[in-house]
């Protein structure tokens, strides 16, 4: 059954309604009527205005959040509990501050019962691959923001997940570091094609990296309102591809859809603040 499914991850008719803790009558529907399918080896980006429920969708795919209704399927199998075939790169700091970079990369392997020596060797290999060779003994606070992101990337990828979920992983980095990291992720991805669900609010980043870009509406009750196949040739350099005429064309097309939603989202935030 699972081998037949062409999809690595399917989110079908997902709806997420949150209830305020102190007042059960206060409800907020973050995501509604959302169906999203990601093929094996496909790099899909989801863009949308800030606060529209992108992360909610990703948490549903990771199994960290139960949807109010709808089904999640992983390689054709309904998902129960944590999605064990997925690796998750978080937006904020997720490294354990009390473990050194190497120990952080090792920890997932240790959870799986890999021997310490073996895990350490693999961790060392991955640290080298993300450009952190020789930094294994450092604690997260001794690393710069970009290095922490690299360590987090190694921590996720060392487990060789079939699905990679990324929640605005580079939004906290400066532009140069960010482009370097984006290229590195593309490099690593092209070697072993995994299904990637990449959440971002940066349209440039989404187009430069993905095979497909899904545009979400402004919240509440976020749902996909547009889908664009990105037919730019690979391998791509995220900085260079931005000047490609096709890139500009796609950017205009998608931005036309996204712009209204961004304005709506902005207006809502203003209203909330007032």
């Amino acid at each position, binding site marked *: 059954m699972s081998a037949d499914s062409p999809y690595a991850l399917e989110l079908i008719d997902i709806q997420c309604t949150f209830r305020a803790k102190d007042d059960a009558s206060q409800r907020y529907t973050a995501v509604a009527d959302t169906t999203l399918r990601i093929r094996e080896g496909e790099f899909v980006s989801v863009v949308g205005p800030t606060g529209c429920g992108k992360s909610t969708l990703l948490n549903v795919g990771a199994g960290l959040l139960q949807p109010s209704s709808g089904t999640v399927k992983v390689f054709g199998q309904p998902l129960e509990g944590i999605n064990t075939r997925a690796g998750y790169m*978080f937006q904020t700091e997720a490294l354990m501050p*009390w473990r050194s970079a190497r120990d952080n990369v090792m920890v997932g392997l240790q959870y799986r019962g890999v021997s310490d020596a073996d895990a350490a060797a693999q961790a060392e290999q991955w640290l080298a691959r993300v450009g952190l060779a020789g*930094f294994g003994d450092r604690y997260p606070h001794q690393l710069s923001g970009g290095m922490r992101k690299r360590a987090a990337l190694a921590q996720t990828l060392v487990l060789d997940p079939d699905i990679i979920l990324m929640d605005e992983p580079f939004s906290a980095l400066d532009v140069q570091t960010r482009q370097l990291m984006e290229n590195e992720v593309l490099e690593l991805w092209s070697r072993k094609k995994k299904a990637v669900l990449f959440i971002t609010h940066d349209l440039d980043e989404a187009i430069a990296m993905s095979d497909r870009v899904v545009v979400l509406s402004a919240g509440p009750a976020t749902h996909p309102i547009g889908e664009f196949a990105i037919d730019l040739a690979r391998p791509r350099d995220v900085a260079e591809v931005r000047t490609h005429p096709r890139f500009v064309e796609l950017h205009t097309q998608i931005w036309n859809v996204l712009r209204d939603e961004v304005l709506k989202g902005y207006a809502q935030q203003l209203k909330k603040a007032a």
Partner: protein
Amino acid sequence: MATFRPTERNARAWQVGLLVVLLLAWHLVSRGDKAAFFLGEPIQVAGRIWSWFLPFAVPPNPLFPEGLPGNADIYRHLGTTLLETVLAFGIGTVLGLACGLWLALAPTASLILDPYIKAANSMPRVILAPIFALWFGLGIWSKVALAVTLVFFIVFFNVYQGVREVSPVVLANAKMLGANQRQLLRTVYLPSATSWVFSSLHTSVGLAFVGAVVGEYLGSARGVGYLILQAEGTFDVNTVFAGIVVLTVFALALDGLVGRVEKRLMKWQPRSGETEKL
């Protein structure tokens, strides 16, 4: 003149200077017999400490007209007090850690026990000393029990807080990396809670000491608290002060020891002034 201004470099000299001035003032004030009765005399206090610690007698001299016996008899008492402190600290920390972890991870139990914990914490626990004396006798265990009640709540609340304030992202990350409940406890909750325990370690070591001494003071046959109680009974204020000095010095030493252990175990925590980023 500028060299005598207090700066960070000559702070030690200033600290010692202040001590000398205070001792001198104490000495001058205590020259009157009446004042000496209430305040003690620093030289007599020093003499008392000498006889407590050193086995060498001092022949009569202008400072000590009767000479000083070299008893070296405090070690038995000091050993008892320190043993009580260490036992209370160890038992209290382990119990606090275990209960804190359990209650923080079992919301139902913590909901039910909440008022009892609040009551136990706000109760003045020193009054438990007579009960403990009744239960455990006048030996060291009644003092250990009293000190444990002091240490336990400090550690307990810190662990409880520590587990509840584990970063949700770190927790979710560990889950995504495949940690089961036991692995989460070992690799996320416990290290996070330990950092809170260490931040309370200075307080809890101090309280373990307080518990031991107060316990001895309320009824015992051994310990520094007992020495102080005996001296008080005979209005021997010099011995009382000598006891206080000895206790203070050892409390400082314990605190320094904790600081060292903390520095070693908490090296993953950023310290201000550390610019090692690359």
